[in-house]
């Protein structure tokens, strides 16, 4: 009798082979390099963060040659741009390599070109920051003008991102050509979504920097349209953080279920969530401009809607995760309404860290929904509340998921294993980080409600009573920052240990299987061309109207200023 191997079985056979053989060494080198850069950035950024926390607490006076705003600019760029982007790329390239059967040689080459382009760009960005020629923050709002080199650096970073995105697309389309009619492996599907969004988001900042800021900062044109630049920036700026979030979400859907010994949530809905997050993301940027002049109320209202719309797929995710946990817990014998919780592997850092990350997203997401609405935004805009919000979203939800990933991804790419001791260190690290973040983010939220502004060096505003009421919270922030730096040091130690010193061995790339007996996913989800066009149409719906208005009704532009 003949055995017929179905395509599904083929995939499992192939996966097994891959599990045995482990990652291709050359692909591993790519991921290792990206992760190293990411975690060195974490160390530097975390250290700068502590300096700031202590300065704002009034405990530490910075030396004259080191400016608070310089540190803040570096802290923001290191953590929001370098750590997140390098980790995301390293993780997804490993995912692509693992689920698509290795990277193509030309994609490997592209990954390296992208790597060095980003590094080169980053060096160009850092030099003017160190020389105090670019203390313009992560947002670099014109008419504040940094040294042109800063902007050229940004251009190279964006170009690097594009090359990496192109590499991912090449690999994905190659796989699909050889696996006609099949669904892209789920992790590669997430990667496609993330890279599509990365290109979409960076296109805006590329236009801002290339066509507006660079000619202006070089003096080729005299003035700049401040509102347009700001709008283009936020189309990128907000999307960027959502991309890091989508990266974390991919681990929740794909990796975490496997670690707890369960199966994935419904494949179709998972893909729908990815597509929804890709289509609706870029238009969310406008809620950063709710109290700006020059945008009419009906337009702001529409954008409140567009921002809130992202909440919907996020709420779907919340449901999916808890459903997976509950099912797995019950399958393992958990009884009663909450008994299944006890059955989850709390001692496993690969689960604990992402779980806390998810839990943190509940208040973080709720805060996000709240501050996207007009009136509440007016209360908290540009206060420490916002800083608290993105330390919850990025510092906990995203970064803790990344930490959780690192405890298997680093051993996987280094062909080493996660030892029980290292796991214990990881658990301790997770707890310290959580404590630090909770203390810090909570204080930031409260002091923000009391009116303390963000991005402001230590000041008492002439011993004003209102400002004095903020002081206790500032000290809490300083304490939180201290915890965080301790956790950062442990984490970076763990990374180096797992990459270079841990015992040799094979580590699994944990990808959960679909539940048996699920309906097959419609093929429509694979038609990325359609989703990209839909995304463009949604973006056009959101941006044509305000941008036309800002350009046609523009005031005379602003010349560059250096105010630091």
């Amino acid at each position, binding site marked *: 009798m003949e055995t017929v191997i179905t395509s599904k079985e083929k995939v499992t056979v192939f996966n097994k082979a891959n599990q045995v053989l482990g990652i291709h060494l050359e692909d591993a080198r790519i991921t290792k390099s990206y992760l190293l850069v990411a975690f060195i950035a974490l160390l530097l950024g975390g250290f700068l963060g502590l300096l700031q926390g202590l300065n704002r607490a009034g405990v530490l006076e910075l030396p004259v040659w080191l400016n608070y705003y310089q540190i803040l600019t570096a802290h923001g760029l290191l953590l929001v741009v370098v750590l997140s982007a390098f980790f995301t790329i390293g993780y997804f390239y490993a995912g692509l390599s693992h689920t698509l059967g290795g990277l193509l040689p030309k994609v490997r080459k592209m990954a390296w070109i992208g790597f060095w382009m980003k590094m080169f760009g980053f060096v160009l960005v850092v030099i003017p920051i160190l020389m105090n020629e670019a203390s313009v923050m992560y947002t670099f709002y014109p008419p504040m003008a940094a040294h042109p080199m800063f902007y050229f650096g940004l251009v190279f970073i964006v170009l690097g991102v594009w090359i990496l995105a192109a590499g991912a697309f090449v690999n994905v389309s190659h796989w699909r050509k050889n696996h006609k009619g099949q669904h892209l492996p789920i992790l590669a599907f997430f990667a496609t979504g993330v890279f599509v969004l990365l290109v979409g988001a960076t296109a805006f900042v590329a236009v801002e920097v290339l066509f507006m800021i660079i000619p202006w900062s070089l003096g080729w044109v005299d003035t700049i349209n401040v509102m347009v630049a700001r709008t283009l920036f936020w189309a990128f700026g907000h999307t960027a953080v959502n991309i890091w979030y989508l990266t974390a979400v991919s681990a929740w859907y794909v990796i975490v279920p496997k670690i707890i010994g369960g199966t994935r949530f419904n494949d179709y809905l998972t893909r729908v969530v990815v597509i929804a997050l890709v289509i609706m993301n870029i238009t969310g940027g406008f809620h950063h401009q709710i*109290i700006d002049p020059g945008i009419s109320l009906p337009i702001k209202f529409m954008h409140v809607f567009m921002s*809130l719309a992202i909440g919907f797929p996020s709420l779907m995710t919340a449901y999916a995760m808890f459903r997976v946990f509950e099912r797995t817990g019950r399958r393992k014998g958990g009884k009663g309404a909450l008994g299944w919780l006890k059955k989850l592997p709390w001692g496993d850092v690969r689960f604990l860290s992402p779980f806390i990350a998810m839990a943190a997203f509940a208040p973080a997401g709720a805060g996000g929904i709240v501050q996207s609405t007009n009136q509440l935004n007016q209360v908290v805009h540009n206060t420490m509340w916002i800083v608290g919000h993105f330390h919850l979203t990025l510092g906990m939800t995203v970064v803790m998921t990344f930490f959780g990933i690192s405890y298997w991804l680093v051993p996987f790419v280094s062909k080493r294993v996660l030892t029980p001791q290292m796991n214990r260190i990881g658990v301790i690290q997770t707890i310290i980080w959580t404590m630090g973040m909770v203390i810090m983010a909570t204080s930031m939220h409260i002091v923000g409600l009391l009116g303390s502004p963000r991005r402001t060096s230590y000041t008492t505003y002439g011993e004003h009573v209102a400002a004095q009421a903020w002081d206790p919270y500032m000290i809490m922030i300083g304490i939180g920052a201290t915890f965080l730096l301790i956790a950062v040091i442990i984490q970076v130690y763990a990374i180096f240990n797992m990459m270079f010193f841990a015992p040799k061995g094979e580590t699994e790339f944990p990808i959960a299987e679909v539940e048996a007996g699920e309906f097959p996913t419609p093929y429509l989800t694979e038609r990325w061309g359609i989703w990209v066009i839909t995304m463009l149409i949604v973006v056009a719906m959101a941006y044509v109207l305000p941008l036309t208005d800002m350009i046609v009704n523009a005031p005379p532009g602003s010349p560059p200023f250096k105010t630091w």
Partner: protein
Amino acid sequence: MHLDEKIWLTLSFGMIMIFMLITGYQTFALEMGPPSHQETIDPEKVDQTAPFNEPGIKKIGENEYEVVMTLQIFSFTPNTIEVPAGSKVHFILTSKDVVHGFEVANTNINAMVMPGHIQKITQTFDQPGEYLVLCNEYCGAGHQMMSMTISVK
């Protein structure tokens, strides 16, 4: 989709819709919309353009004041104002250089002030006291010093 998921999604959707409803009601029916004034000005000629050629406070009615204010690194002009308790104050703001923020601690006043744009925001000060006004958008090396006070007597 399972029934419980449908219920969850309906609730999620409903919640977002309720947020929209409340925001819309507040914005359009109660006229509590965020500051969104649309007038523009030449940012390099603020000093020569009325009303900013004469920044200051002006009484425009019973318990009603108009404050014309310019923001520049790292100060507000005028840098102190005084109004009686219970007065309604209309702020008319613009920036002479970079982007600034206009926030009055312990009130709901919070607005971005951009070069080239005139921003307006109104507030009734019922409680007497010294209100701290500060710039909440990073504007340069002296950003932390950019503040003023409003005394409500």
